[in-house]
């Protein structure tokens, strides 16, 4: 998986599709929702969060793997997936703030989901602080893995539960019906046909960058061992 090319080409094709068709399709303009063309951000801003969740999820798997079988390589995987995940999250929060400025009137409105996302990211940033404060590699890996599990499960309240319980500027808060994220009536089948490939494409891009970093780490380790 690490060195195969087919999924990199898939990633390329999907993102090219997203970046071209995403602008070419007609987007719906439902009454009472002054989104206009900015709804196209759905293909760029939202996949950042999906990608972040997937990357954090993969990191969690490797953290648990490390705790079950302490091999240094699992720790590399876990660490690098968190790193890329945090970058995706920061990109998501920045693009979200830009979008919010034109949609809600301010970069930061203290919206439930904005605050939740910021808290989640801070929890993950603390992961690096924690690792940085320890000296031994083995301790770094073990305590980091335990903290990683905690950090992942903090995503549940901060991103998936609390913003849905209160009134949110994001669609899908208490005020609107049912679907969290985007009201299905404001979307259209063609938008979904761009959105899901976009999610897969952006996520694969994140995985690709991560695997490059992991490969460099593994190579470094190998050279150290041989030296």
């Amino acid at each position, binding site marked *: 998986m690490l060195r195969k090319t087919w999924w990199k080409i*898939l990633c390329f094709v999907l993102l090219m599709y997203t970046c071209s068709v995403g602008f*070419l399709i007609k987007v719906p303009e439902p009454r009472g929702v002054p989104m206009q*063309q900015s709804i196209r951000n759905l293909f760029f801003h939202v996949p950042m969060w999906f990608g972040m969740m997937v990357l954090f999820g993969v990191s969690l798997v490797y953290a648990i793997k490390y705790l079950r079988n302490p091999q240094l390589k699992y720790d590399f995987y876990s660490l690098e997936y968190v790193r890329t995940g945090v970058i995706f999250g920061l990109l998501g929060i920045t693009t979200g703030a830009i979008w919010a400025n034109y949609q809600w009137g301010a970069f930061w409105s203290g919206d439930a989901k904005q605050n939740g996302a910021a808290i989640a990211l801070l929890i993950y940033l603390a992961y690096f602080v924690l690792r940085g404060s320890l000296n031994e590699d083995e301790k770094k890996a073990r305590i980091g893995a335990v903290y990683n599990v905690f950090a992942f499960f903090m995503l549940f309240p901060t991103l998936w539960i609390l913003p849905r319980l209160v009134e949110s500027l994001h669609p899908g808060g208490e005020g609107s019906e049912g679907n969290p994220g985007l009201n299905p009536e404001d979307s259209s089948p063609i938008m979904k*046909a761009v959105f899901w490939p976009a999610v897969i494409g952006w996520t694969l891009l994140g995985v690709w960058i991560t695997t*490059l970093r992991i490969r460099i780490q593994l*190579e470094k380790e190998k*050279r150290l061992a041989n030296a």
Partner: protein
Amino acid sequence: MLSIKKIITFLCLVFINTISFAQGTSNSTDVLKSNGKIYVVMVVVIVIVLGLFIYLFNLDRKVTKLEKEKHS
């Protein structure tokens, strides 16, 4: 090479939806000058993403080379 076949099938399934939607769009001659010049943005985004991909592919090749390098 089974994976290539899988990928092509997957892509076909993904895009078949769009192809069916694409029928019936208007045939304007210069897309770039229409509709608030949103398509200029599209071209810019494509160039940026394309550039990033070229960079990533190169980086990938470099790492591969590094891995294959013999070291005692």
